[in-house]
């Protein structure tokens, strides 16, 4: 039914609050850890590796088994099926088997009668390690040629020749750090054994189907024996796309082995040490351009720390390549993507999925070109935008709805960019300690899973004879408002108040074979699947009404004031009762597969994305040149969500995404020591933004437009794109550092995150003659 264009005809799209808002504020919203614990519940903890890479020569768990409260201890040998919790390459062990490949990797699993007993016992394992050479950093892995897959190249034209012939040329580079998800609800899973070997799991996961499949394979069960349920997560951001499986599998193993319910609620510090993060990148570039700043040639090298296993790193690094153009036409280009295998926790999905790292590379290049030409960086950006006759990406996809130039032009005016730039120059001339900077950066983000088969979704709509409605779909709720958006879609189909729609937990026994709720695609895919399910029922009801009242189907209308059939008017509840008596099925599944996308990974050419979402932000910052402290003073955003399904929810996503991006580029620093131990493993040392980091001046405006593709309501995805608006903060900080030596025609050497120490170092370096 992909041919339908569901610009929903019935109701205005009001900004319904999040469906769980009242439960959230009263503490009544239930998360996986909130169900009453049965008396025989077992609590779990992992014994963890103390080496980044080592052979396990001996494992003495006698003290663990003897510890107070311990009921069972398991090692890899106890796993009946496949010892794997990895999504693609099946190289992530639930429990280490003979060798550890990253620090804090689980080696054994303790089940005890209390949580503290399990955690205490888990520290009592005596493990003999034979350390092996380990690669902790990008440089070390590069030197050793340690890769998770062959280096990928995306090319167009002849970058080498174009570089050689360009009027101007520069090379540069910088490092971009990773990021911990810091979902407020840590990883958690509760496994309950059922009859005949079945397992039920409450899992805080973005990907219930994958947890189901991995647990089934791990326990030698069929998928139909395992049910995974998730009502809501306390935040996820990609960190529960693959990473939840480890804890769910551990709980399932204990439940299967002991016959008792088992809960794995991971401690925050362990969670940060054991679960994957955003990939750190080392970015190097060689760019050719002309006197006006037009980029003529680019060779871009993206080296990513992927960690010890494959996880989702291939697709994440692909997406970095896809976004290395951002909004700019790159005539002759070579993008080289090096995916480095390091003995650190395997890096994973995180909002933007590699896109931010690719995008910040090209934005940095724009700043660098501008610095060398002594121009306003915005002029250089404008000179390079996609436009008529220059509208094909390096992967050969046409940029069909290129609205970035319009958004930028509008924002430039509304945010008073030019006037403020002049005011900031004057401020910088007056002040010796504090310096300000301002930057406008755009975003173009491709929407669809680049692994094409993932772009499908299912839904189940149940209409009861009293007119109430239950909906279920494969998407999970992690705070992004997916459930309320889908509920609105279904309510609108039947023209009933949204309160008549009961949103239920995502369960693998209702909708099978789902994709992860990821890639910002939740509402696009599940909204459309739910729409199709609801429309199937509505069409049956329409036919039934036409037959019953002897009118044409075109005389049947679902309205807020009731259902009209010719001259008759019924309430929706009356209709449902009548239809039930008339033996009309009031339940339907719905399905949706994104049309028109195709991508050849071998050549990195094709149309990986159904459409693009756009936005732009202006950020104004100040730095202290004596301490490196900084403050984001003002942010103005215009962002494109197509025709919004729920403007309030969408604005919340934009604001939250921006602040999260700001954290990535400023305060959030992952520090590993030379042994591969994560030193920033708690909120005491890993600093996500607080309320006062939000700029006092912050405006967010939705772009008034609609999706050119027939998505649900002609809306656009919103989860990830706004994250990258925060690149404007990093560019503005660069400008503020540059203000320390305003006449210098060079970009200050600033790495991300721009901690006080990095800013101070950049200030000093830029002032050197």
């Amino acid at each position, binding site marked *: 039914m992909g041919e339908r264009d569901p610009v929903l005809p019935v109701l205005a799209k009001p900004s319904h609050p999040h469906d769980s808002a009242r439960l959230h504020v009263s*503490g009544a919203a239930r998360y996986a850890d909130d169900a009453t614990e049965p008396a025989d519940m077992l609590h779990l903890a992992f014994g963890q590796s103390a080496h980044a890479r080592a052979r396990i020569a001996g494992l003495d768990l006698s003290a663990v088994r003897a510890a107070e409260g311990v009921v069972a201890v398991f090692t890899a040998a106890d796993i009946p099926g496949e010892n794997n919790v990895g999504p693609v390459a099946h190289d992530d062990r639930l429990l280490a088997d003979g060798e550890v490949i990253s620090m804090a990797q689980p080696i054994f699993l303790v089940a005890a009668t209390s949580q503290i007993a399990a955690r*205490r016992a888990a520290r009592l394992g005596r493990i003999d390690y034979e350390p092996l050479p380990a690669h902790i950093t990008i440089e070390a892995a590069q030197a050793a040629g340690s890769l998770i897959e062959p280096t990928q190249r995306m090319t167009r034209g002849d970058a080498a020749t174009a570089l050689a012939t360009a009027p101007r040329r520069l090379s540069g580079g910088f490092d971009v750090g990773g990021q911990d998800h810091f979902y407020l609800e840590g990883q958690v899973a509760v496994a309950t054994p059922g009859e005949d070997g079945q397992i039920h799991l409450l899992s805080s996961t973005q990907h219930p189907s994958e947890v189901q499949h991995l647990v089934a394979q791990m326990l030698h069960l069929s998928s139909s024996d395992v049910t995974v349920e998730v009502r809501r997560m306390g935040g996820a951001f990609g960190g529960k796309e693959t990473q939840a499986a480890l804890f769910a599998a551990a709980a399932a193993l204990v439940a299967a082995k002991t016959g008792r319910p088992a809960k794995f609620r991971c401690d925050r510090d362990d969670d940060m040490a054991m679960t994957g993060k955003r990939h750190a990148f080392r970015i190097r570039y060689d760019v050719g351009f002309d006197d006006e700043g037009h980029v003529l040639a680019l060779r871009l090298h993206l080296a990513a720390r992927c960690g010890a296993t494959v996880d989702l790193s291939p697709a994440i690094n692909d997406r970095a390549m896809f976004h290395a153009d951002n909004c700019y036409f790159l005539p002759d280009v070579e993008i080289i993507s090096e995916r480095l295998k390091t003995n650190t926790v395997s890096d994973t999905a995180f909002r933007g999925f590699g896109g931010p790292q690719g995008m910040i590379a090209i934005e940095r290049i724009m700043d660098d070109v501008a610095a060398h030409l002594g121009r306003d960086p915005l002029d250089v950006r404008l000179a390079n935008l996609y436009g008529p006759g220059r509208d094909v990406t390096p992967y050969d996809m046409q940029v069909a709805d290129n609205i970035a130039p319009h958004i930028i032009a509008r924002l430039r005016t509304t945010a008073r960019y030019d006037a403020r730039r002049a005011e900031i120059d004057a401020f910088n001339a007056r002040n010796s300690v504090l310096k300000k900077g301002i930057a406008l950066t755009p975003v173009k983000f491709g929407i669809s899973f680049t692994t094409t088969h993932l772009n499908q979704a299912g839904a189940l709509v149940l209409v009861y004879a009293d007119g109430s409605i239950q909906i279920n779909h494969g998407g999970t709720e992690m705070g992004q408002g997916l459930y309320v958006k889908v509920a609105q879609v279904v309510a609108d189909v039947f023209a009933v108040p949204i309160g008549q729609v009961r949103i239920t937990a995502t369960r693998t026994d209702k909708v099978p074979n789902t994709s992860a709720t990821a890639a910002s695609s939740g509402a696009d895919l599940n909204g459309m699947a739910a729409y199709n399910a609801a429309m199937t029922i509505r069409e049956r009801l329409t036919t039934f009404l036409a037959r019953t009242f002897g009118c044409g189907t075109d005389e049947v209308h679902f309205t807020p004031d009731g259902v009209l059939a010719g001259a008759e008017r019924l309430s929706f509840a009356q209709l449902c009762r009548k239809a039930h008596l008339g033996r009309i099925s009031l339940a339907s599944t719905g399905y949706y597969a994104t049309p028109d996308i195709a991508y050849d990974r071998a050549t990195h050419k094709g149309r990986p994305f159904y459409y693009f979402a756009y936005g732009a932000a202006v950020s104004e910052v100040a730095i202290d040149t004596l301490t490196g*402290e900084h403050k984001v003073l003002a942010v103005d955003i215009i962002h494109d969500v197509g025709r919004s399904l729920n403007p309030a929810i969408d604005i919340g996503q934009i604001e939250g995404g921006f602040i999260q991006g700001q954290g990535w580029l400023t305060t959030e620093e992952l520090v590993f020591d030379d042994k591969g131990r994560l030193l920033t493993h708690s909120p005491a040392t890993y600093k996500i933004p607080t309320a006062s980091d939000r700029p006092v001046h912050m405006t967010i405006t939705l772009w008034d437009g609609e999706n050119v593709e027939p998505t649900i309501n002609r809306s656009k995805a919103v989860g990830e794109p706004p994250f990258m608006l925060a690149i404007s903060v990093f560019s503005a900080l660069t400008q503020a550092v540059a203000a320390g030596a305003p006449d210098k025609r060079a970009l200050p050497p600033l790495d991300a995150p721009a901690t006080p120490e990095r800013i101070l170092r950049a200030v000093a370096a830029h002032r050197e003659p």
Partner: protein
Amino acid sequence: MSVSFILDGDIVEIADADPTATLLDHLRYRMGRTGTKEGCAEGDCGACTVLLGELEGDAMRWRAVNACILFLPMLNGRALMTVESLAKDGALNPLQACMAANGSSQCGFCTPGFVMSLYGRSVGASGHDLPVTDVIAGNLCRCTGYGPILAAGEAAGPLDPGDGDLIPALKGLATGETASGRHGDRIWFAPRTGAALADLLAEHPDARMVAGATDVGLWVTKGLRSIQTLIFLGDVAELRTIEEGLDGLRVGAGVRYADAHQAFARLHPDLGELVRRIGGLQVRNAGTVGGNIANGSPIGDGPAALIALGAELTLRSRDGRRTMKLEDYFLDYGKQDRRPWEFLESIWIPRPAPDDIIHIAKLTRRFDSDISAVCGALSLTVRDGWIAAARIAFGGMAAIPRRAPACEAALVGQLFTFDTIEAAAKALRTDYDPLNDVRGSAAYRLDTAANLMLRLWHRERGEVISVLDLEAAHG
């Protein structure tokens, strides 16, 4: 003896309470009140925020605290409100209703903590006079970007906590005696007087004293330690007095930072700003000025500033009292000049002269609720253009918070000029040999410590020297 407290009008008694069981675990897993969430179990995220009420004279005083590092005996004789206490007969209170309507929650996991922090502000709890950003500085949200939460906080008016009945009820719980309990072979005490505390320490010199548990709490939740004997200090009223006079300030060691905030700010605005940035409000509502000194952290924030201001300590035991300069208390890393049977009773801070030039700076990765890379406190007395006295102290630069003798020597007796300041900044680099650690490299610490001297100079010349004092060019 059981731990007794009042929750929603009912007395809750916990017999044989585990003295290091946390309130959060008790609420969630023993009482089934799962609205209060665990985000970190180390007092850094605020998802477990509850309001703890105690009698101050004849009035109720509420404070937002982190339940994750609050040990059960610390509840004894007090009143508690959790997020479940707020909605009456299923109706949200106005603050909750506003937050539900305006998008203050996305995933909702941090939300109960924010509700409790903001509700505390509405009912006049400790710290209610702070800006909303400060009231929620100890609450982390990863979804919203904070805008709607701040808006709800700004919009919230005063609310009546309906706690009138609690006052007689709490008086009924008070016995006047040292509370104590036993859990297996572990024992705890909560004395009510300094004399009783001194006696207990004489009998149990190996006991761990616990004031706010913002540090010791983590020994248990993260270190998984078992502590044999605990003496809780929260009931010792005489440790919680503040005497403010023309000459200076005497602060009882048990005064929580939140309660010392205004008096410290009156000593010098920089000291007030420093206190504002020590932990989040929940941490300042639990952590004490004395605990911040007695635990001997090499950073500790409070100590560096108080050393520069010339603070003195009074230690007390059954044998009597002794006083010492604060800087003399810190002997070496993890080692302080306190005998096991002594306790820190009070801190005396002389009031700076009005024309003393003082600059106190806390350098962190994030402004709010972060531990210092460097905490610097510079105090100069300048007479007729000459520097008559200098006290320069730093935390985060050595194994203990301590003064900078070479820097001070380069200042005293010199004209207050840029050259002198530059020379002193240079000398400062010889005073310390700091560590490289996760909060900053040795080079960063030395550079910024020296630069703080320059910042002091620029501020004296009338320049704005903090990014926190700037506004955007945006009209």
